């Protein structure tokens, strides 16, 4: 089990309220990602759930039990930190066994669980090393191992991949996803990287300035972002925003068009512009187009075979059914 309920939770540091009253339901077995720019309160929210920060008001319930005043270790949660937070003076074996030792489990049980975790995380050969002798990816695995052995009701991940290099990050992302599929335990994952959010989540919670902007599955957020912030945050490259007469023609204040929903032609199209830079990624080409009269720059995503030079005039046509419309307050018009 692992159903987490936040009701009217707030958090203030001194006079500054970083989390205004907030409600959230995380269902059992769900992989939930908190995403948002840095300083949006996503880590604070996770730490409130963990019990590392005290709530200023409101209640947190885990499986029907009010845990608002319960110390972190008694909430049955396990956390993986951004810096891994391994105990540098203990071997990998002792690191993994530490929470069990604190819980007073028998030595035999500890050994058994350490071995099981080590096997599933490919750490068997490293059990007697200290964290300082491990690579970043291995340290990450130890941190996960330390979380797994506690058999928690939910896992909390605080930006666990941001200290890894790009290649490892993709690998670990997959491993964590597989782990979730296998264990079916509730997981809450904090990241600022919308790619991680999109690829891993069952449910994404987009936060800004402590406020939940939208909650939904990755595709819901991608297909129907409820406001300009979510529209701009989810998707890469960023959605293009167009204001002015073009928007007014479609009875909106702002239009949002994703780069991948614009067709390019050398002959004809709805809009015309001049190519400033074209970035060739191999599989794709990103065109940055100026002088369209719509926005400073329009980003267009086309296939990798297309090639334009700086200064080329091109014609662009949006896919009408994929154009998002927003009102003056930035809210979606459906």
């Amino acid at each position, binding site marked *: 089990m692992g159903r987490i309920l936040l009701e009217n939770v707030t958090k203030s540091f001194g006079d500054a309220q970083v989390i205004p009253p907030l409600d959230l339901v995380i269902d059992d077995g769900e992989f939930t990602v908190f995403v948002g720019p840095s300083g949006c309160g996503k880590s604070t929210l996770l730490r409130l759930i963990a*019990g590392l920060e*005290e709530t200023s008001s409101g209640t947190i319930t885990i499986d029907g039990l009010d845990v608002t*005043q319960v*110390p*972190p270790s008694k909430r049955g949660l396990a956390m993986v930190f951004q810096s891994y937070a391994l105990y540098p003076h203990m071997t990998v074996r002792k690191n993994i066994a530490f929470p069990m030792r604190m819980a007073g489990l028998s030595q035999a049980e500890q050994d058994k669980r350490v071995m099981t975790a080590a096997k599933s995380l490919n750490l068997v050969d490293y059990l007697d090393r200290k964290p300082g002798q491990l690579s970043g990816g291995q340290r990450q695995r130890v941190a996960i191992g330390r979380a797994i052995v506690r058999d928690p009701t939910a896992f909390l991940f605080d930006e666990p991949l941001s200290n890894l290099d790009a290649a490892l990050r993709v690998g670990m992302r997959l491993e964590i996803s597989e782990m979730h599929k296998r264990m079916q335990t509730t997981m809450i994952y904090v990241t600022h990287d919308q790619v991680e959010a999109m690829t891993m989540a069952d449910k994404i919670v987009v936060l800004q300035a402590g406020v939940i902007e939208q909650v939904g599955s990755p595709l819901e957020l991608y297909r129907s972002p409820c406001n300009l912030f979510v529209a701009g945050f989810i998707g890469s490259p960023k959605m293009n925003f167009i204001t002015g007469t073009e928007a007014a023609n479609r009875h909106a204040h702002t239009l949002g068009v994703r780069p991948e929903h614009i067709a390019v032609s050398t002959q004809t199209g709805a809009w015309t512009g001049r190519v400033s830079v074209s970035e060739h990624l191999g599989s794709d080409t990103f065109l940055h187009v100026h002088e369209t009269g719509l926005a400073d720059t329009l980003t267009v995503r086309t296939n990798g075979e297309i090639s334009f030079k700086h200064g080329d005039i091109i014609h662009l046509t949006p896919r009408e059914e994929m154009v998002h419309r927003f009102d003056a307050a930035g809210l979606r018009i459906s």
Partner: protein
Amino acid sequence: MSNRTLPRLLQTPAVLLLLIWMLIPLSMTLYFSFIRYVLNSLRRPEWTKPSISNWRGFGNYEFVLNNKDFILAIQNSLLIVCSILFFTVIFGILIAVLINKSFPGRGVVRVLLISPFFVMPAVNAVLWINMILDPVLGLQGLAVGGLNDAIEGLRNAPLVGGFFSLWPDFAPISFRATQTSAIAVIIMVTWQWTPFAVLIFMTSLQSEDQQQKEAAILDGAGAWSQFRFLTLPHLSRPIAIVVMIQAIFHLSLYAEIEIVSRGNGNKNLPYLIGEFANNNIGAASATGIFAVILANIVAFFLLRMIGKTLME
């Protein structure tokens, strides 16, 4: 109960101990400073007990302020502290720059240089005043004696003898005398604390931005300009720290003065208090309160400075 209560309670023993340590003796000093209280008095035996009936108001403070030793002690305190600060900072910077470059045996040089800082103050004073500065038997006396002997020999030499016979005999300086004992204290404390300044400046120099220096070289800055416009500003915070920490230590200088001169004409505030405390407790306490005020003025600036740099 929140899970932070116990951890926060852990600081109470230290806080309580320091509170007692600070409040009880200080409030006693404050109380004694307002009453007539002496250790021995045949004429007024009732003054030998600390009693509220001997209330004197600000009488002790007036007595102290009108005592010429008090003004002298303040002057001396300031003279000693300011001189020590001046010399330690100057020598500290020069030596720190000198040993900042790597050269053979730098580790040993560091060890030799830092050693004086760990010598106990009592030994420091005894060592300097007897074996080095003593006008007869110390190295000073021996050096001056040797010099005089040499000149004496040269007077009888052919050719130059006439020239040297014009020279007077050199007289060694007694550092236990009224006018010179403060100088002896300044010399020995400077010797002891220059290493401290060197250590701190050197540590700070090592964190100096080398790319900034390289940029300055490319911009055509010479060695002096680099020192003046990059190194010195970089050292400003360590200099402030060295000055403030030393001020605190040296305002309460005691052992060196006691050993060098027994305070003859060379009292500082702590010494004067000790002297008053041999009999006139009221005056000693009033002087003590002045010392506390003086230290608090210094402390105020130090704490503000440290507070800014530490709690980021």
